């Protein structure tokens, strides 16, 4: 038993922190919110230089051959400073491709970041719906998964996917479509006929989103095993959880520093129980989220049958932790925490949007219940 970071992982994390500290990401996030889209620095060259695009691609295909937990460490660092890097979609797409022999020829340029991929998020069936489904454009009903027609290694895909992370300016889209009711992996060039990606921003300027419309678009069918297609969805939950926990860390650190510094009635506000206890509540949720990230990071390869539960639990706890941390960050700072100039609203915006993407925090929570009850019934 060893549930701690290796020396290599600590080094990877510290290197990422150092790299990202040289960019004024928070100032850029605020300027972009003010309408200056050009204020967001292009961090892809930075990611390429650091080798992040190839994290989950095997060394034989030009990647680093690392595992989910290493990717989670990088996304945690991105989350700490709200860095706008289109890594989430790219890593998920590369994970599916790496599990499919047919995807191998595509990996080389993705591994070094010369091409960029995005993941089409489609969630596997649960105990109630029995259907693969996608996030809806509006409302609470899940939307249908894309449909693939044709046989063999080529297919034509049709469908709509809303709020797809990192889709704008991607070269390749990788995800799941249903062919004859069965899930198959598909890879679609964004330059192909019938592919439209509409760039979308919602509330948090650092999050690149796109509405993807596929109209009889030519696709390569990926021979990835069905479990691997489902695992991509859970990896998405784990990576978003990791990114959120990174944001919680910063929100808590900044709040604690202010609570030590700011005095009222002759003493630091952090000495008052009401403030102290609200900050320890953030720490409690942060610590729970971190423990579940360790579980998920280990389970993806160490206990694949537990990965859906581990990753969903991590997302559920991390998502709620970020809500709590962002609101606490604002309230501990008092009125100043709710002003445009402060960083707290940037973390609040991140929390508000994240909780509603990729099935939502509540979707992950429901999945935890689904998985736990399935285990209980099987025992």
């Amino acid at each position, binding site marked *: 038993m060893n*549930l701690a970071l290796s020396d290599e992982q600590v080094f990877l994390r510290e290197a990422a922190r150092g790299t990202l500290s040289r960019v004024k990401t928070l100032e850029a996030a605020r300027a972009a919110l003010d309408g200056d889209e050009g204020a967001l620095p292009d961090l892809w060259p930075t990611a390429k230089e650091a080798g992040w695009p190839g994290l989950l691609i095997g060394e034989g295909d030009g990647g680093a051959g690392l595992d989910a937990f290493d990717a989670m460490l990088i996304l945690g660092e991105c989350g700490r400073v709200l860095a706008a890097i289109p890594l989430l979609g790219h890593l998920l797409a590369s994970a599916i491709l790496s599990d499919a022999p047919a995807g191998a020829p595509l990996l080389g340029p993705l591994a070094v970041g010369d091409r960029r991929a995005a993941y089409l998020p489609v969630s596997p069936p649960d105990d109630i719906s029995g259907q693969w489904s996608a996030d809806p454009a509006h409302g609470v009903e899940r939307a249908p998964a894309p449909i693939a027609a044709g046989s063999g290694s080529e297919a034509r895909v049709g469908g709509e996917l809303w709020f797809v992370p990192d889709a704008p300016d991607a070269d390749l889209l990788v995800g799941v479509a249903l062919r004859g009711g069965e899930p198959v992996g598909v890879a679609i060039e964004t330059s192909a006929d019938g592919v439209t990606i509409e760039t979308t921003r919602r509330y948090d300027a650092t999050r690149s989103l796109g509405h993807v419309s596929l109209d009889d678009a030519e696709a390569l069918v990926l021979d990835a095993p069905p479990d691997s297609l489902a695992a991509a969805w859970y990896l998405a939950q784990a990576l978003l959880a990791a990114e959120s926990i990174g944001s919680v860390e910063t929100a808590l650190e900044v709040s604690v520093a202010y609570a030590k510094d700011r005095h009222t009635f002759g003493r630091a506000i952090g000495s008052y129980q009401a403030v102290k206890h609200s900050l320890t509540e953030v720490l409690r949720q942060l610590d729970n989220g971190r423990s579940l990230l360790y579980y998920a990071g280990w389970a993806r390869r160490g206990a694949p049958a537990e990965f859906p539960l581990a990753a969903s639990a991590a997302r559920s706890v991390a998502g709620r932790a970020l809500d709590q941390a962002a609101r606490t960050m604002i309230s501990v700072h008092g009125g100043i925490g709710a002003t445009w100039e402060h960083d707290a609203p940037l973390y609040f915006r991140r929390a508000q949007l994240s909780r509603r993407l990729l099935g939502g925090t509540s979707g992950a929570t429901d999945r935890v219940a689904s998985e736990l009850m399935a285990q209980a019934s099987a025992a």
Partner: protein
Amino acid sequence: MDLDDTPQQAAYREQVRNWLEQHKPEAPVLAGPNALREESEIIAARRAWQGKLAEGGLAGVTWPKEYGGQGLGPIEQVICNQEIGRARVPGILDAIGVGMLGPTIIAHGGDEQKTRYLGPMLHGDEVWCQLFSEPAAGSDLAAVQARARREEDGSWRLSGQKVWTTNAQFASFGLLLARTDSDVPKHKGLTMFIVPMDAEGVTVRGLRQISGEAEFNEVFFDDVALDADAVVGGAGNGWTTALTTLMFERVTIGLGSEGLGYNSARFARAIAAEEDAREDPEVRRALGEIGSELMAVRFTGYRTLTALQKGQVPGPEAGLAKITIVNGAIRAGDLIADVLGPDALSADSEWAYMISFLPGLKSAGGTEEILRNTIGERVLGLPPAPRLDKGIPFSELRSQEATAA
């Protein structure tokens, strides 16, 4: 990062599992139609079982070999606990003695004390209890008022009251924190004693709780005579000695909290058995939130264990796990009772018992409020609230409080 056993750990697990398979028929039966019913029978059977576990090397796993332990690490302790749980047999009866008080004596006791007390404690021949908390000293433990006065011959006379004492009704000895000097600030005038529970002047009274059961006791001391060699860790050093016990308490909570039975699988089983509830979105949301937090505690325990293996001392953040468990179980009890209706509150329901037990557990081992204070100050580094008791002799403090009242 790896949750699997190393080859050595797997071999140890195999050895423990074999021993348990071989000796399971000798274990006391505590549930089902053939279960023991009388408390005295249960206690006797569990003491005998603890003796067998000790002979088999399944008790005192982390104790040094010279005191009858196995000299192994916390990881082996956890493996042992896991296998005992898997075999569905009771663990040791005196978890407080072996887990917290024995290690305190090993750390601070004299050679004669170690020779005299540790063996019978480990084997369940003499059960121990922890005599720290008082009616007016819980979160503020250093405010204890039980008084021990030194006689001219070096012996002591003890008077006062303790409360929340588990196992006192059948314990042979207690480890007791008493005030021996009221003229110095409160943390300085304390001394730790070993008290024979059959001494003249010791009265144990059961303390019934919400469930109607008496899981704890009040213990009264009326001019009890203690020998000079009853002191552990030196007169006036009681606070340091007590901190050692509390550190081992954190280890016990951090590694053994799952043993309380408040886990996600148990609660999910109860909901899954109810056809309508298992598809109800509100029920699922509550179960998902509770279940994910309780799962987190298991892996926090593994992180603690990893730190212990590297020789790090567990900090106060283990208290966060306790807060998560207790509040999660309280929510789970409410959820399950909402689903089952009033039947969940019938006298023989496991849920009625749990629902009754948890409000008290919220304060046990440190109230949620004092845990959050400690963690806020020692982990986050937030400043403490101003204190009115610093540097003031205990006797003056008492008179100040009386005036203020």
